[in-house]
């Protein structure tokens, strides 16, 4: 089993709030993603058993939505908005800076498995551009200095947790 008891419990708690079990697909994918860090076929199978919806329906829905990574990523998934409002505030150069800082290219993960860097479409932080999302959290009005601090903080946090 990949899903923890607590995740299954959360899925089931959410499921009963809807008139139809099928509606629990997205809440289940979200809960699973937050626990596992990504989604895959094995996770779909488990969700299928938990909410009693055919496996194919879970896979169809999951692959439609782009927010959930479908393969393993680093501990911190950095998603940088590259849409218009952020781009007008230097998002392209910010991406270059991040790549340089992390020593990886777009789509790659640092060798210590700490950071994965990708660019994404608009995250709804337009008035505080440029911005990025790391796992669940938004980081806005970014500057080089802020990025340095954020990455340092995350590294420190990871060290503390003994990774």
């Amino acid at each position: 089993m990949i899903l923890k008891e607590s995740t299954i419990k959360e899925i089931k708690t959410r499921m009963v709030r809807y008139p139809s079990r099928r509606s629990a697909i997205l809440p289940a994918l979200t809960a699973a993603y937050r626990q596992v860090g990504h989604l895959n076929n094995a996770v779909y199978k488990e969700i299928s058993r938990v909410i009693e919806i055919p496996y194919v329906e879970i896979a169809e829905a999951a692959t439609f939505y782009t927010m959930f990574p479908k393969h393993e990523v680093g501990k911190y998934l950095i998603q940088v908005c590259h849409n218009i409002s952020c781009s007008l505030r230097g998002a392209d150069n910010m991406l270059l800076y991040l790549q340089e800082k992390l020593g990886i290219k777009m789509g790659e993960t640092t060798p210590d498995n700490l950071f994965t860097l990708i660019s994404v479409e608009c995250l709804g932080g337009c008035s505080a551009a440029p911005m990025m999302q790391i796992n669940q959290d938004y980081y806005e009005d970014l500057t080089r200095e802020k990025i340095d601090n954020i990455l340092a903080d995350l590294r420190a946090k990871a060290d503390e947790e003994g990774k």
Partner: protein
Amino acid sequence: MAQELVFFKYIDDPNQHKIDTYIEHGGYQAIQKVLKDFKPPDVIAKVKESGVRGRGGAGFPAGLKWSFVPQNTGKPIYLACNGDESEPGTCKDRVIMENDPHMLIEGIMICCYAINAHHAFIYIRGEFAFPAARVEGAVNEAYAKGYLGKNIFNSGFDLDVVVHTGGGAYICGEETALLSSLEGSRGNSRIRPPFPAVSGLYKCPTVINNVETLSSLPSIFNNGIEWYRSHGTEKSPGTKIFSLSGNVNKPGNYEVDLGTPLSYVINELGGGMQDGHKLKAIIPGGSSTPLLMPDQIDTPLDYESMAAAGSMLGSGAIIVIDERCCMVWALMKLINFYAHESCGRCTPCREGTAWLKQLINRIENGEGQQGDIELILDACDNIIGRTICPLGDAAVMPTRSFIKHFRDEFEYHIEHKTCKVKTDYPFV
């Protein structure tokens, strides 16, 4: 927010998301009044009278929308609150959900009472983990106080509110796709008729309203129609939050009366052009709306004036572009988005946006060919008005507009294999 706030007076109060603060600030009074003094049809009449229009983009009168819901079909009626804010440039609903979630909940209560719904869903885009947590926290507080659930304020009215988060798909902000997604299916839009008001969520009558629309309801009932109509214009009453982004000194969310000149928002509230740069163009209502040019900067921000100026008020996302920007590059950013977000259901959008993306990227990359502009425009003709939902149109409108106003930049690109304007916004 620095300007005079009307609906969102307390939005900057760090405790406003807490129920006690909200109540302290006069919260949950409107719903009590409505439950006590109004019959559901009277609520609808009142909302109609107020003239409040949908703030999601289309500007459809909210009261009229509610009146389409058939009563006594034997089926439950649902409210789906659209918080899937994903149109590039738009970040206004997020502010409400993060900072004043109870105002949204109170608005939802008013709407549900009016349309006789006992089950409401707040669909929040999946990336908005924090706003969603705030709203869910507020919902839990409201349940704990007995403001949600059974027999609300001893009125006999029952209401359950469920927070539902998405999975990363712009299309789910389109109302029928939102319903598909809420039902657990892929977020494909569906053909109308049947309209959601008649056959929506789980094939039951459903109203879909934007977060901002619903959030404006408590003030209307607290302060009255006259007060509401004293803001805004005759046909576009009230205030609206505009998300100002791009090359201005103070980007941010600003609430102003509808009908306020665009220039006021950019120059006064937004502190003018970033570092004194020159205004080149404005995307006034979210990335899908046609451009306004510098000479149109005084256009009033209301539905009618924006239409007259050849664009749309849309979601109220004002994206300001300065002279450093290559318009081919800017359009590429937009078209990449629409191609990425096409759900894949109808042919013209699925294939057409992908082709536009290829063509525009090719021009931007210095590989454009003679005839590409004409080809792009012709492909646009084959997309717009040909699809189930407006996503196809949303890709075409900026494309046409960018080419209309900046054709020279596109031609320069094709001829010289490079930008006329070298875009390189610094990151410091």
